[in-house]
């Protein structure tokens, strides 16, 4: 079920120019500096160690990975030419393409081995390599991973931009987290970092493009750096970022609030880009505390909420109503499973379930944070609905992000938690399901049915079996009310009209972009 967003209609009226940016009608031009504004500085520029969006925006320009994701999020080769997987699924032999590091050194398998060994020690998603027992470099252009058991999700894992499996020179491999020199093989090289001000990247003239592709493709493809430099400025105030774009001081604004975008869309010097979907809007359910231990109580919450009202208010109208725990059109999209339990708005059913649950007015804590606006919106509107429609004794507990993020790790102190899941659905099914299975297990209660399905998803060699596992997972998430998916929300980015070939993606890519 997909509904039109109020914003979408407005943007469509702004002109088709914004949507055909991908067509390079104007000759490519070399030179110049593009300034990209983002809300926050990166917590770290050590790509392997952080999953922060604000780091990814920068590090994907500096480092590349063996495999990456294409425009549609599919797994495709990047620094590897391809991979040969042994029949038992336990040996992955990667043939490496030619690439050069920013220090002038050619990339070899020794660099890849050192990078992967480092990732296993300090990498943010090191669990991906949990079953790898050996990294080998039998020849300069061959890298081998040996596993203790088949892991069909391995390529999905190492190609994810969440905390990239960045390939760096061998001499960086032994360095601790956050202590490396920023040397990669990407089209831009690190030049300067002034905390709270900017990061400056310069074009890497020695860049070796991937000739297996014809053009930019997601985080992979044939990349060309046209710009002399890219300056990523950190501008915390959304109004100031929008004003800077309007005044022509910046070229790209990575995040524009919907009301500001409505105003800017009339400006002929600015192109507004809507990225839909950007993330799932979800309410995480803590199954371990008080009435939440009772399935009927959780089902009452699932039945009563008006999902559309919540997601619409929380995201200023930039949303779409989808029930799937994978994006429609994706390989693992599970069709209509669970749809009958999605956005029911059935007060009578909810009241009956609540009565059957034996709820006696215990306080329910709805955890949210004020750092991310849609989290706050979901918490406030959700709390109000549960009070008004069902008479549940709910308290909105809105704190800052680090506090909420820390609180949810413990089973006590909260019952519902508002969250946006962005990178997980982009990555595919493994991290969406993994978010609710052990060890992450946001519900704080192990669910054997969900674990069994997750096990099949991780280990089944055949795609059809993995798709079935994901469908079973989705069924279980609705039946057990593991979490509530309210829908998908989008984000809006903006660029000056002279920024050619800019196309929004999971990070503002400044390769294959030039200034007219």
């Amino acid at each position: 079920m997909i509904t039109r967003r109020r914003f979408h209609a407005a943007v469509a009226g702004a002109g088709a120019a914004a949507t055909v940016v991908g067509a390079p009608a104007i000759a490519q031009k070399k030179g110049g500096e593009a300034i990209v504004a983002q809300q926050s500085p990166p917590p770290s520029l050590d790509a392997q160690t952080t999953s922060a969006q604000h780091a990814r925006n920068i590090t994907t320009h500096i480092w590349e990975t063996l495999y990456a994701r294409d425009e549609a999020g599919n797994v495709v080769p990047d620094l590897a030419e391809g991979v040969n997987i042994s029949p038992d699924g336990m040996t992955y032999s990667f043939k490496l393409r030619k690439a050069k590091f920013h220090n002038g050194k050619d990339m070899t398998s020794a660099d890849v081995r050192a990078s992967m060994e480092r990732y296993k020690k300090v990498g943010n998603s090191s669990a991906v390599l949990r079953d790898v027992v050996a990294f080998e470099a039998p020849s300069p252009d061959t890298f081998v991973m040996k596993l203790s058991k088949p892991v069909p999700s391995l390529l999905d894992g190492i190609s994810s931009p969440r905390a990239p499996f960045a390939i760096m020179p061998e001499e960086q491999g032994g360095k601790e987290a956050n202590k490396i020199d920023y040397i990669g093989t990407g089209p831009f090289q690190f030049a300067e970092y002034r905390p709270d001000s900017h990061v400056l990247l310069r074009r890497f003239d020695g860049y070796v493009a991937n000739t297996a592709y014809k053009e930019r493709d997601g985080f992979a493809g044939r990349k060309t750096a046209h710009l002399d430099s890219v300056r990523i400025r950190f501008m915390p105030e959304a109004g100031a970022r929008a004003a800077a774009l309007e005044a022509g001081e910046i070229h790209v604004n990575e995040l524009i609030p919907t009301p500001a975008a409505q105003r800017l869309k009339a400006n002929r010097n600015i192109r507004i880009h809507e990225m839909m979907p950007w993330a799932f809007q979800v309410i995480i359910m803590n199954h371990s505390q008080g009435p939440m231990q009772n399935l009927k109580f959780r089902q009452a919450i699932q039945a009563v909420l008006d999902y559309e009202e919540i997601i619409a208010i929380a995201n200023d109208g930039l949303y779409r109503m989808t029930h799937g725990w994978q994006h429609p059109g994706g390989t693992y999209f599970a069709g209509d499973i669970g749809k009958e339990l999605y956005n029911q708005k059935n007060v009578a059913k909810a009241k009956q379930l609540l009565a059957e649950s034996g709820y006696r007015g215990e306080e329910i804590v709805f955890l949210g944070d004020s750092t991310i606006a849609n989290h706050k919106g979901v918490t406030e509107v959700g709390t109000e609905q549960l009070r008004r429609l069902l008479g549940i004794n709910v308290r909105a507990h809105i704190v800052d992000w680090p506090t909420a993020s820390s609180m949810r790790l413990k089973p006590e102190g909260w019952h519902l938690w508002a969250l946006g899941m962005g990178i997980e659905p982009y990555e595919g099914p493994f991290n969406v399901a993994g978010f609710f299975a052990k060890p992450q297990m946001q519900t704080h209660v192990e669910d054997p049915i969900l674990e069994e399905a997750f096990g099949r998803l991780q280990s089944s060699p055949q795609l059809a079996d993995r798709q079935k596992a994901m469908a079973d997972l989705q069924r279980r998430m609705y039946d057990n009310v593991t979490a509530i998916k309210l829908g998908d929300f989008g984000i809006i980015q903006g660029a000056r009209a002279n920024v050619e070939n800019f196309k929004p993606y999971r990070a503002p890519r400044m390769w294959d972009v030039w200034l007219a």
Partner: protein
Amino acid sequence: MIRFLANRLIAALPVLFIVSLLTFVLIYFVPGDVSAELAGPGASAADIARIRSVYGLDSPFHERLLGWYAALAQGDLGQSVLLRRSVTEAILERLPVTLSLTALALVLAIAVGVATGILAAMRVNTWVDQATMTVALAGLSLPDFWLGLVMIYLFAVQLGWLPTGGYVPLTENPVGWLRSMAMPALALALTQIGLLARMTRASMLDVLRQDFMRTARAKGLPNRVVIFKHALANVMIPVITVIGLSVGILLGGAIVIEQVFSIPGVGRLIIGGILRRDFPVIQGGLLLTATVFVLVNLAVDILYAVVDPRVRYDR
């Protein structure tokens, strides 16, 4: 005077110790730490524990407290996890930015505020008095972040006279520095201009009614001399007190203004530290702020002696 200064500086040490201890304890018990920022929302408790271990965030309270004071005794404010540099280095990089912003705002506030207050007092109960005090009240009432955003829209977007934000170091480009500082300093100063104008007016009116003022006029002294030599010197005692307070308020206000105008100063460093739980940055930043407050108070006391011959600290 030297003995007075020495006593005041010694007396400041317990204050700074209490500030540092309170800061440490409060931060320790606030939920979350830098591992949440590094790990991201999908992290498990095990992921968080691993990162906490890597950065030594899982040490017991007493170990961390002792470590903090042991380092502090050697002048070491610690190492920022996120900035890859020492806190001292991070603060020293930003201190000139914040101090120059505060100084510029203070100069503006004193020049405009005191002059406006004197003018209003000399034209008391006229339209000049009414108009200046109304504007002063408006300046006092409007939030500086709102003023900042309005200024950005007006002077940067509509008129294109000034940049929307950012910072140009004075040593790199003095004109660029002034352009980057003009709006933030004005937004920051407006509240204090209103406060100083109203304070100066009230003090001036009080002094103008004193007997010695009547005597000065009776002696036939020109109005300029009466006002600027005899009245102003007496007005300055309470005004200096307010200026001292203003420095503190301006330093506090700079935190918000630095956010609005994307200026990499100490305020933004502390806010960033708090939002991302970079504990050494918060501790170091707050200790620095407390030190600046102590020094400003001391400077105000010294200024009393400079402007008022009756005040002596050497007896």
